């Protein structure tokens, strides 16, 4: 599979779904598979089922705003979410999702494109566009450091690679950000 294209069906979610609603604080310490069962249940049981069925969340403005806890992102990863598109998204949600290998892409136009649950979209990282309903929606270029983290699988995997490189080279680990 090409790392530069993420293709999948979407779960359509609304505006202003806070990170506390994505996964309430009381579930933060559960094992991942149990967190996945609670993902978005404070919104509705249907939202949970939909997010677990579809690998891409199409979410409205401020999805994931509020708490900087990382457990909502861990729960998304555990539920099989590969990417979240739409937005605009809050910065801590963005970072936490990326660090758990879930790509987050601001593309407001997509929110208003009339997509339904289960519609398939394609995120093309190289060409900086999302394709849906026969249309191409432009997205901002994804920073190299973000690409490297997501392609490694998570910040932990990425960090592990850096640690190994630095112990081999005897040098100092860095994020290689330019």
């Amino acid at each position: 599979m090409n790392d530069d294209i993420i293709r999948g069906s979407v779960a359509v979610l609304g505006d202003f779904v806070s990170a506390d609603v994505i996964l309430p604080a009381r579930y933060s310490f559960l094992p991942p598979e149990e967190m996945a069962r609670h993902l978005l249940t404070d919104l509705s049981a249907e939202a949970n089922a939909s997010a677990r069925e579809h690998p891409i969340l199409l979410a409205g403005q401020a999805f994931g705003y509020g708490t900087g806890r990382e457990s909502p992102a861990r729960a998304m990863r555990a539920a099989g979410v590969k990417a979240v598109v739409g937005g605009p998204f809050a910065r801590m949600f963005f970072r936490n999702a990326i660090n758990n290998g879930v790509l987050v892409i601001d593309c407001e136009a997509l929110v208003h494109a009339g997509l339904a649950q289960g519609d398939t979209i394609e995120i093309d990282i190289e060409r900086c566009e999302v394709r849906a309903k026969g249309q191409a929606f432009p997205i901002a270029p994804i920073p190299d450091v973000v690409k490297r983290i997501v392609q490694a699988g998570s910040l932990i995997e990425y960090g592990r690679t850096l640690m190994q490189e630095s112990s081999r080279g005897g040098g100092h680990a860095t994020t290689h950000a330019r």
Partner: protein
Amino acid sequence: MRPLTLAEKILARASGQSTVMPDQIVEAKPDFCYSHDYAAFAIDAFEEMGATRVVGADRAVVCFDHGTPADNARDANNHRKVRDFVRKHKFAEFYEGGFGIAHQVMVEEGFVVPGALVAANDSHAPSGGSVGALAIGTGETEMGFLWATGNIWLKVPRTLRVELSGHLARGVYAKDIILQIIAKLGVLGGLYQVMEYHGEAAGRLSMSERFTLCNMAAELGAKGAVFPYDDVTAEYVSGRARFPFEPVLPDPGAAYSGVFDLDLSALEPMVALPGREDRGVPVSEVDGKKVDQIFIGSCTNARVDDLAVAAQILRGKKIHPDVRLMVVPASRAVAVESTRNGDLLALMEAGATVMPSGCAVCAGAHQGVLGDGEVCLSTSNRNMPGRMGNKNAEIMLCSPATAAASALAGVVTDARRVLKESTR
């Protein structure tokens, strides 16, 4: 060279560059970092990365605040794991639960110093901007990465200049300022930006008031908020700062993404209606709404001056019998001072339940979870559904004065009426 905002200057220095541009991604080396109970996750990440040494442990602190004293064996075991880790890696300091809310403690204990780049795995990290630092929230895995490498990647934010003018009317407080700013700008109004506070009225705000404004930058979606170093900062950090520091001021002519002017003299006490932090309205619009629980606490509004206002209103009186009033001082140092000056006694005699310093009700995981259909009026920072552990309950945000006056009446009450009675 291009004139820089305060945040740009700090990020340029911390990334070893002479200048930076908004939207540029930099690799920065924070001057200080701190964590809380969720350090347990950062430790997992650190160990899973195969790291063995904490880079800059002498500039790292952990302070328990989210779930202490422990509610259950799982939390207690996580606490044990964190204590063992910070001891093994010789962190600069470790604060046991009850010492205070990490954001408050780091400023109070002088770990956050002017001009520093600070990282903390919590969304209310921007609080550190009260002393002129650029303090930024990260995730827990990122904290583990920071311990492992000493670095984090950051996008250079644009800066929104906030100009404060005028004098606050009697009965109107810092919380009303920030609730008004959030109501005007929205919960994404500061997205990917840093709020930089200016104006003669900003210079008059106390350290505690500045803390309240910076703290709720999180509710604007902002990356940070900062009050440039001035006499108020100098007096506060003198004898307190643990690290050498160099105050940073923005360059004249720096480029801002916008300017937001606010005349404080026009402000009224504000209440953020349930569901979202940007639903602030003047208290008159919600006056008389019944409340079940009142929380005077959190990193936003539970310092000595906050408890003093509440005590002024409640001294010698009794809270309404249908209301539960919970008071949680932001730190033990606050609790000690407010005990010495009699304010906590006045609050307890009025019927308040005083709980150990920590996040308490605001974290929504224990202590003060709401029942279905209940309404909590809170001096904390968040009111989205489920924040206090129950999506079927409502939360409204306000100042300590509004909270105290409402505790007397059992319904949302404009504190200005009560203050008039209590002081001539």
